[in-house]
């Protein structure tokens, strides 16, 4: 009897293992089969229904909320993108009407701005390339000035010269002034009446103006500088004559003048260089206006 009970226990244990393996419930006797059937029923019932129901309710609510949130984010992001695109289109098309800029006349060669400035009779102009004697055609208007520092300021009105009292209408050519040009006033200078310079160089750093008249053996180079910047004593017609044989180092032409005369004329330290005699050069210097 004892042995039979142990065999039943062993048979039931084997039947439970079979159920766990997925085999149909069985056993050597009827009771073992019934108990194996109960085990299968428990197996099929699965986990405690209350636990599963709690999990399902909790997770179902959370996941549904997440889905709703995902959908809402998707919709809002799409709507936001559409609205942003619409606003962009509106801003581009329906914004304040752009006022067309005033038509600009294309600047002439050399980007120069031409303006006519009536000059009082007592004043003289400084721009030598545009300074013209009375009755002369404005030849230099189309000439591009050679400027060493490449920041030519406007050719501006020169210091008043006590000249001959004639009222002159001079045309001033000026580059469009840049900031540096505005900050630093270009030097005023004198011109040789009746002659047009072939080359004018303005050195703003040294406040000097160098004019070249003619070429070859007849070339005259007039260099002027404000007298205050030099050591020369102020005073009209005070001669500081110096006839030098050595040519100036800054000559831009192939042929260099051989003589040089330096005078203070109308407050300007004027140096005239050329192959002519010193007396002729001095005469030229004194004739500058």
């Amino acid at each position, binding site marked *: 009897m004892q042995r039979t009970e142990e065999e039943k226990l062993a048979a039931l244990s084997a039947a*439970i293992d079979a159920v766990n393996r997925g085999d149909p419930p069985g056993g050597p006797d009827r009771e073992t089969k019934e*108990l194996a059937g*109960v085990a299968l029923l428990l197996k099929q019932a699965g986990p405690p229904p209350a636990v599963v129901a709690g999990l399902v309710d909790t997770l*179902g609510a959370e996941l549904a909320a997440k889905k709703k949130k995902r959908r809402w984010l998707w919709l809002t992001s799409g709507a936001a993108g559409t609205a942003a695109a619409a606003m962009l289109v509106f801003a581009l098309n329906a914004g304040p009407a752009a006022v067309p800029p005033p038509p600009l006349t294309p600047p002439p060669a050399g980007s120069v701005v031409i303006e006519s400035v009536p000059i009082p009779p007592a004043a003289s102009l400084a721009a030598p390339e545009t300074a013209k004697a009375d009755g002369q055609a404005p030849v230099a208007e189309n000439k591009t000035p050679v400027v060493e520092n490449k920041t030519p300021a406007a050719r501006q009105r020169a210091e008043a010269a006590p000249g001959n009292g004639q009222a002159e209408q001079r045309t001033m050519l000026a580059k469009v002034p840049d900031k540096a040009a505005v900050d630093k006033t270009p030097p005023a200078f004198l011109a040789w009446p009746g002659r047009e310079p072939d080359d004018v160089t303005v050195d703003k750093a040294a406040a000097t103006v160098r004019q070249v008249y003619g070429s070859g053996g007849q070339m005259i180079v007039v260099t002027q500088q404000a007298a205050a910047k030099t050591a020369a004593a102020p005073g009209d017609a005070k001669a500081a004559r110096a006839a030098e044989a050595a040519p100036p180092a800054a000559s831009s032409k192939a042929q260099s003048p051989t003589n040089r005369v330096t005078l203070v004329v109308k407050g300007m330290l004027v140096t005239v260089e050329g192959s002519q005699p010193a007396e002729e050069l001095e005469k030229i210097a004194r004739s500058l206006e």
Partner: protein
Amino acid sequence: MVSDEQALIAKARDGDKAALEALITGYWQPVFRLACLKTGNSEDAQEIAQETFLKVFRALPGYRDTGAAFKTYLGRITLNLVTDYWRKKGRSPQVVALADFPEPLADPAPLPEDSALSRERRESIGRMVAMLPAEQRQTVELRIYAALSLQETARLMGKTEAAVKMLQQRALKNLRRLFQEHGIDR
């Protein structure tokens, strides 16, 4: 089967309760079994199983089918929670490696959703199991719900195999009587 599982997962991701219930019921036993094996305590194993499902399904919107079975994913989460369980207890966790469990959630038994048991019937059965004495109930949980072997159940319960055999027989006889009283049969 895999396509059905993927369909269920897709539905569960959107909060479909039927799909959630099918997946939880289908995978409860292997998860619970693994947790029982690693904790040695059916009550703690049940909590770990619940936490496993909560964690897995909360992360379901970001779940990507990488070819690994959903069952393997569940097994990894279960083992992570078992490690946390031992860490909280201030004890060194048992060496847990998936390599030791190539199929940690293997359970060849038919899935509950395949059975014809209604939810009410399953609830009745659950209530009857809860009416069993504690040791008998634990034996049922470990031997049948968790599908542990006789040796594993004896080790976890700290009893001899003969004692477990006796407990499982008494438990099943009591349940058979309760089923008959409530009109539950196969």
